[in-house]
């Protein structure tokens, strides 16, 4: 009985998060999987549709274009946020005073309302017309995304940098290692787990980008910012094609899973 007590206690403490995860993540996912093989009408009628919704996605040029748009956005956003977050983390680590203040200031965009910042960024981009030009809209959105999200990534990387022993860095400096050499051969290797975490989290975020698009461009101009998540929203709520939206959502989930696993393997192979 006493052997069972400890695992049971652990289970009880885990229960809230398990329940919440089950209720708000796992069950909806199962529901989406079920909906994706149905033709679900707002009036309440449900018909089994088999793989029809998935087949319609394959033949939907806009869905395939949204996939390309999402990949392009991720290709701009992820490296950019990594560079900005790493740069600010290194700067923050090296400032001799006011570190707490700067950390809070740099984290401020992360806790700012996205609707509010979206409106302000729209004003800022207006004179240059960056959101009106299909060729500049994705980079412009990526800049806003990075501005909004780099604070969190910066904190993760800053924690990683602090784990590098200061005396080792000091010894390397005494031995004549340059700033670049210390960064390249000492800081960067010890940051690999933190970088992996940031890359995975931000890639997932890039694939799921919706709110920025919703607030700033509505998927335009000329569908240049029509991402996968926005397509899911439009299928589901604008066109009330819930089955197709659920199918698109599951495709998005599968892509994110695949990308995350691939990244994990890549990081494991090159420790």
């Amino acid at each position: 009985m006493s052997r069972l007590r400890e695992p049971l206690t652990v289970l009880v403490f885990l229960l809230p998060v398990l329940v919440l995860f089950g209720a708000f993540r796992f069950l909806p996912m199962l529901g989406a999987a079920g909906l994706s093989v149905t033709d679900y009408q707002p009036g309440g009628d449900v018909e089994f549709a088999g793989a029809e919704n998935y087949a319609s996605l394959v033949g939907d040029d806009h869905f395939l274009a949204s996939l390309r748009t999402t990949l392009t956005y991720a290709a701009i956003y992820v490296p950019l946020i990594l560079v900005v977050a790493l740069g600010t983390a290194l700067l923050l680590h090296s400032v001799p005073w006011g570190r707490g203040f700067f950390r809070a200031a740099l984290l401020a965009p992360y806790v700012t309302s996205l609707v509010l910042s979206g409106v302000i960024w729209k004003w800022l981009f207006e004179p240059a017309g960056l959101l009106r030009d299909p060729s500049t809209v994705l980079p412009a959105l990526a800049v806003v995304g990075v501005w909004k999200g780099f604070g969190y990534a910066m904190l993760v990387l800053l924690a990683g940098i602090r784990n590098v022993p200061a005396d080792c860095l000091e010894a390397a400096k005494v031995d004549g290692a340059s700033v670049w050499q210390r960064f390249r051969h000492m800081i960067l290797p010890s940051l690999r787990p933190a970088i992996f975490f940031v890359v995975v989290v931000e890639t997932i975020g890039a694939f799921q980008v919706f709110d920025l698009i919703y607030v700033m461009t509505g998927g335009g101009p000329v569908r240049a910012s029509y991402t996968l998540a926005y397509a899911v929203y439009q299928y589901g709520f604008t066109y009330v094609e819930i089955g197709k939206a659920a199918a698109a959502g599951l495709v998005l989930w599968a892509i994110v899973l695949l990308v995350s696993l691939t990244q994990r393997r890549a990081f494991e192979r090159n420790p």
Partner: protein
Amino acid sequence: MKRTAALVAACTVATLTGCGARPGDDAVTLWMYPVIADQAQNRAYWQKVEAGFEAEHGLKVRIELQPWESRQEKLGAALMAGSGPDVVLLQPDMIPQYVEEKALLPVGDVLKAGDRQYRPSAITALTVGDQAYGLPLYQTVTTTVYNRKLFTEAGITELPDTWDEVRAAAPKLAAKGVPVLDYAGSTEETLNMTFYPLLWQAGGSVFNEEGTKSAFSSAQGVDALRFLVDLNAMGGLPRDAATKRARLVDDAVAAGKAAMSHSMVSTTARNVVRSAGAENTVVGAPLRHRAQVTFGQPGALSLLRTAKNPDAARKFLSYMTTPKVIEELCVHSGFFLPWTGAMPPVVDDVDKGFAQALEFARAGDTHPQARRVMGLLAPHLQAALLGERTPEQALADAAVEVDALLQQKR
């Protein structure tokens, strides 16, 4: 430790049961939108309706005031979640889609019970097959509104009322830094108030007569889109016309940032009066080209199939169509009465101008895929305005997509 674990377990159970709890409620629910622009007046009017219906029928009604923005998305989400209203305000081009999705119940019996003669065009617009799915509450119309001061400053004394005259006025106004025509090309805008009136004025339509194919990729459609593209090239549209959103509070004509609108509602026209002065606000007839036509439609109440108590909801619909209720709504909203022969409730120059436009009103091209087609067509219109496609290419590309959709849905 034991006590803490028990507390955690209890909280979890409480959370779970809380999630499933749903208050019992037998009130008729109406989703209404700000048809009365003044928020305080809007609230006061609907509170009066709630009280009046409850006093007359002894039944409860709950009126939920929703914003116009993303209304279709919100309604779709609520219906899917089973938390939609019993009665909702819909526009004619939304009704066929909801009928096709089996979301609405016919309301012809309530419509026939009244002693008023509704505008025939309104009834036609709200009828799918041989059943009416909406009870007209009011009639809207859009028309051409000018900021005369901007034309005068550009040396134009005669306000343009044909496309050719608008084209001719564009360079003179552009020289003063003012676009002649306001245009909101964002994909989130309804084309009923942007491109479609021009398409109809050019003699075109969105669908063929059978509703089986698109009809906008025609000489008339190209004419309409070329009109916009030409104006854009001359500086005759706002710089951000391709992606611009229409705003009531920051309307370009009212703000002196555009000289005229080809499709303005009366609420916005009153904003022009407030900012430019009554002497500089001219409410004209719809622009003339091959045809003189504009967008105007009934706002109608529809009964949802998921209504908890359809009988009570029908009683409420019947109450909403009584003359005293509708007349007061029209007085506050500035819209027209839905009955034939009915004059506008308030008569000033703005009302007179809009009343004269009523005879040219077209309630949109109703079709189960009407809103979806807008979503497909709008990005191609943007492409033409941004110079990425010619009007011919843009409309032909859009027609391919729309025809594929219509074929798939048949």
